[in-house]
């Protein structure tokens, strides 16, 4: 079965954006390898319980960006050569999450060094698990 | 159309059970008479089956009509299930008509199915001898039943919605019902009082009451149907709004019907002399004494409505008087006194034929006088209605034969002055005043069977008796032999009478009946009394082509004067402006509508003076083609045939003319 996406109503991003970026991340992480099939607009909409127009918009943008490609009569697939995530968006995303992490650390009373060290450890943990990690869920924040 | 069919078929399918029930009960009706305990009270098996089946069918249909009428729309409305239909592309019309059509089919269907086994197994459905229901078993009866069932259906819907909506609007419904009922009933009752509903009168022209009937039957039905449609089309899914739409439509339509009924009734009873198809009865005072004449006849297009009028030929004044209803075609119960000052007549107190006849009077010499009901009334139905009642010359006393008595009353006070039991033939008894205190009574000596009206050629003997009011005693005074009914012309003082006896015009002593003289031998001869006891006799001239008027002495023999009128086909004495003169009218044709020539005859000198021609209103009976109308406008007098004497008479208009 395809990897599961979650839609978060508390996320500031519109739903189509969430879908778009989630797919991009899955592709970037390798959880969706090139050439893998993606659920149809209909199926994904039903599964996520969202408006198909929303899924359609996300898919359209992904197709335009070259992340997905549509093969007539066969369905939608990850393109063979997905482009990397664009710099500005990538950077913005990184910055957002970093700000969030930093704010959390401050709230918990951690020092800068402690925060960095913890981050380092987490990074190692991820890369040590490898690109072929089974876990494909986008991890939520642990408050 | 497809929506209608879908609803219609669905409703039928859901209620298949009713059909089964109809058939089942029909079979029971066929089987029941076969059971041992079932007694046959003189009817055949077929009649029993037919009667039972009919009763069952009627009952089932009625119950179905009420049940379906009250539930097929109302239940869905009350239980809020109409939303299902209104959320579909189904028009309000299709919904309403589909459901109603199904209800109608089921109502009549259950009845017919209940009748079916009886028909198949030889039941007698004509109900000839069994139930004695009026017109049941005949097509008309079925039609009435059908209308009744439809009414039940629509009314059940209306009542069901009104009651189940539990809205205060129902109080308004009740009020409206009472109002509408009052309006309709009062219009209806006025028609009953006018005698156009109960009586089988021959309609002249359009039978408007029959048409009104159709409106009264179908009108409320249509109003109920329209109200039901409005309930669906305007109220849609909301119960209270549906109730309001239903009520508003129903009561406004019924009120309109009520108002139309009132207008119709008003039109009916406002018939004037000009609306008469013909005059069947005209009664006037003795010649020359009064310009008033009482006329009655059927009104055009009014289903046999028979109004009565008192008409003043001089002034044209018309007074309505209700003797028309009490009139028979040979007798109008209205009299004008010999001095021309008073008219009396009989009017039904309330419902024609089932209420007493009350004597009314009108003082003709007072310009502002109105008809007044006296205290004298005659009870009874047709047979015992006073026949031949007579008014004294001064108009103060009234004599009438009622049942087996001759009664004399004082008109003004209503006091009974005399009441004498009669023997002899009551049907033919006719009173006549001889002065204010004596009443002469004529009766057939041997009763003919059946009694014949005055102008059929049969010879009778008349017994003459006289009642003395002072003594209250009645005695036989004589007999008239060989006379033709009551076509008798009395002399002004009552001492002599002219009768048609054995084809001749004869002068008799009025008291003893003794023949005194033959006045004329021709069938066309007619006679009248002049002042001083002289007699004027009119015959066709022996030479032909002309009419003769002979003035005879009181003995009826000696000829005093003779006048000859060339080319005259009709000659009618009118009045005597002075004792020495006689005014007559003549006409060259037999058509009374042609102009008449007025002539003044000088009885002393034999001179004839022409006074010009006049057009007279002919008061003739209705034609078969229902076209005749009485036209009084612009005429200078009236001419009619007096039924009590079989003479033609004329009243000339004397005010401001000539």
């Amino acid at each position, binding site marked *: 079965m395809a990897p599961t996406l979650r839609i978060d109503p508390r996320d500031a991003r519109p739903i189509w954006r969430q879908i778009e970026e989630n797919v991009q991340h899955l592709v970037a992480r390798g959880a969706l390898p090139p050439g893998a099939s993606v659920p149809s607009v209909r199926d994904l909409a039903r599964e996520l*319980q969202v408006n198909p127009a929303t899924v359609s918009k996300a898919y359209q943008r992904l197709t335009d960006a070259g992340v997905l490609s549509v093969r007539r009569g066969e369905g939608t697939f990850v393109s063979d050569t997905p482009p990397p995530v664009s710099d500005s968006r990538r950077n913005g995303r990184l910055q957002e999450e970093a700000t969030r992490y930093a704010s959390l650390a401050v709230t918990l009373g951690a020092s800068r060094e402690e925060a960095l060290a913890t981050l380092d450890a987490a990074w190692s943990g991820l890369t040590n698990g490898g690109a072929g990690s089974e876990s494909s869920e986008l991890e939520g924040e642990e408050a | 159309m497809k929506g209608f069919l879908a609803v219609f078929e669905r409703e039928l399918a859901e209620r298949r059970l009713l059909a089964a029930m109809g058939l089942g009960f029909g079979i029971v009706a066929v089987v029941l008479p076969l059971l041992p305990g079932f007694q046959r009270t003189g009817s055949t098996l077929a009649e029993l089956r037919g009667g039972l089946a009919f009763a069952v069918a009627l009952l089932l249909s009625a119950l179905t009509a009420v049940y379906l009428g009250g539930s097929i729309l109302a239940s869905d409305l009350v239980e809020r299930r109409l939303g299902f239909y209104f959320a579909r*592309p189904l028009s309000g019309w299709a919904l309403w008509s589909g459901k109603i059509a199904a209800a109608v089919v089921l109502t009549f269907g259950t009845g017919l199915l209940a009748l079916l086994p009886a028909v198949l197994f030889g039941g007698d459905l004509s109900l000839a001898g069994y139930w004695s229901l009026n017109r049941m078993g005949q097509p008309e009866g079925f039609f009435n039943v059908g209308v009744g069932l439809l009414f039940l259906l629509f009314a059940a819907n209306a009542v069901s919605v009104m009651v189940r909506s539990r809205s205060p609007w129902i109080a308004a419904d009740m009020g409206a019902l009472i109002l509408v009922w009052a309006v309709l009933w009062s219009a209806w009752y006025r028609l009953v009082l006018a005698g156009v509903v109960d009586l089988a009168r021959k309609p002249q022209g359009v039978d408007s009451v029959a048409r009104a009937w159709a409106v009264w039957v179908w009108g409320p039905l249509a109003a109920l149907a329209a109200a039901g449609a409005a309930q669906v089309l305007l109220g849609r899914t909301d119960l209270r709004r549906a109730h309001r739409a239903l009520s508003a439509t129903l009561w406004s339509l019924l009120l309109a019907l009520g108002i139309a009924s009132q207008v119709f009734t008003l039109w009916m009873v406002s018939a004037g002399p000009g609306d008469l198809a013909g005059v069947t009865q005209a009664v006037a005072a003795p010649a020359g004494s009064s310009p008033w004449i009482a006329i009655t006849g059927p009104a055009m297009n009014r289903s046999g409505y028979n109004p009565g009028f008192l008409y003043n030929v001089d002034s044209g004044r018309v007074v309505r008087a209700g003797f028309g209803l009490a009139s028979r075609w040979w007798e109008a119960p209205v009299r004008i006194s010999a001095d021309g000052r008073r008219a009396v007549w009989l009017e039904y107190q309330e419902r024609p034929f089932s209420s007493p006849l009350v004597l009314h009077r009108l003082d003709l010499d007072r310009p502002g006088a109105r008809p007044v009901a006296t205290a004298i009334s005659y009870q009874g139905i047709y047979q015992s209605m006073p026949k031949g009642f007579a008014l004294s010359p001064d108009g103060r006393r009234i004599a009438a034969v009622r049942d087996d008595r001759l009664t004399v009353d004082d008109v003004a006070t209503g006091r009974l002055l005399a009441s004498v039991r009669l023997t002899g033939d009551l049907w033919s008894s006719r009173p006549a005043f001889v002065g204010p205190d004596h009443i002469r009574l004529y009766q057939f000596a041997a009763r003919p069977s059946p009694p014949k009206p005055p102008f059929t050629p049969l010879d009778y003997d008349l017994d003459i008796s006289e009642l003395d009011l002072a003594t209250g005693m009645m005695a036989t005074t004589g007999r008239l032999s060989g006379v033709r009914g009551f076509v008798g012309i009395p002399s002004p003082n009552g001492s002599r009478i002219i009768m048609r006896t054995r084809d001749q015009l004869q002068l008799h002593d009025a008291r003893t009946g003794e023949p005194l003289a033959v006045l004329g031998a021709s069938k066309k001869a007619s006679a009248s009394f002049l002042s001083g006891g002289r007699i004027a006799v009119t015959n066709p001239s022996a030479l032909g082509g002309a009419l003769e008027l002979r003035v005879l002495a009181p003995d009826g023999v000696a000829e005093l004067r003779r006048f000859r009128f060339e080319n005259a086909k009709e000659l009618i004495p009118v009045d005597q402006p002075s004792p020495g003169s006689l005014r007559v009218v003549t006409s060259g044709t037999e058509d009374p509508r042609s102009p008449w020539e007025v002539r003044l005859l000088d009885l002393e000198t034999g001179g004839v003076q022409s006074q010009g021609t006049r057009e007279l209103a002919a008061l003739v009976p209705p034609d078969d083609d229902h076209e005749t109308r009485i036209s009084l406008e612009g005429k200078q007098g009236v001419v009619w045939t007096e039924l009590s004497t079989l003479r033609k008479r004329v009243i000339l208009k004397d005010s401001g003319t000539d």
Partner: protein
Amino acid sequence: MNPIVLEGLTVRYGDRLALDNVSFAVPEGSVYALLGRNGAGKSSLIRCLLGEQRPASGRALLLDRNVWTERALALEEVGVVSEEPDAPPAMTARQLSRFCSRLYRTWDAAGLEARLRRFGVSATTPFGKLSKGQKGQVSLALALASSPRLLVLDDPTLGLDAVARKAVFEELIGELADRGITVFITTHDLAGVERIADRVGVLRAGRLVLDEEMETLKTRFRRVSFPRSQAAGAARLEALAPVAVAARGWEVEAVVSNYDEESFSASRLGGEDGEDPEVSVLTLEEIFIALTGEVQEVKA
């Protein structure tokens, strides 16, 4: 052509105004969610929309037809699921299908039966004997079987358990994906409709206080929380022009409807000892409560 257009719809019951000059349009192919508390006028609006009631003024157009005067024509391509699913109780789903098939130009009886199987509802049980949820599902199946261009749903998930609710949404989404229908839905299930609606309308006391795209709505509403201790709170609060304010023991929460990321950060409510106020996204339910709930005092 907008499948639904309401123009100046006003409904009165005696003196009470149930709907006050309500106007909006539902664009073709969109999902429009109408929200409102009980008694806000939703039922009156739906009744006017379906031609069951005549508005005191204004009109409702379905597929460009005045629905009061041309109801039967207007409903030819519209599927309706009422709040209280009604149908003749003696009729089974199959009989209802046969009845309705005669009213529409196209009718997919097989598809209806398949849908019922998916729902797990029997096609041969009399309608009156079904549970409320099952009745609603049958109604939905009947509404979809005519392949309508427009679906009007009045609280279709009321009384349904989570599984049934999911099934209903899945059917709707399937139709949306397959045929691009327009959906008009009133509901109390704000979480469910949040993901699926393109546009939102909010009725409050008969007035339409909101008629907006879901995306922009969620973008401009934010909750701003800052500690009570911040002395300049009251002034700051007023400067935000909040829609609703809630005072908790330790902080004050304000719901703002005019959030703009850039200008907000620019105005920097940080202040002297400033902890920056926390800005968080609101769910549709929270926005709804803020718009239609009690107005709370602004406490200094």
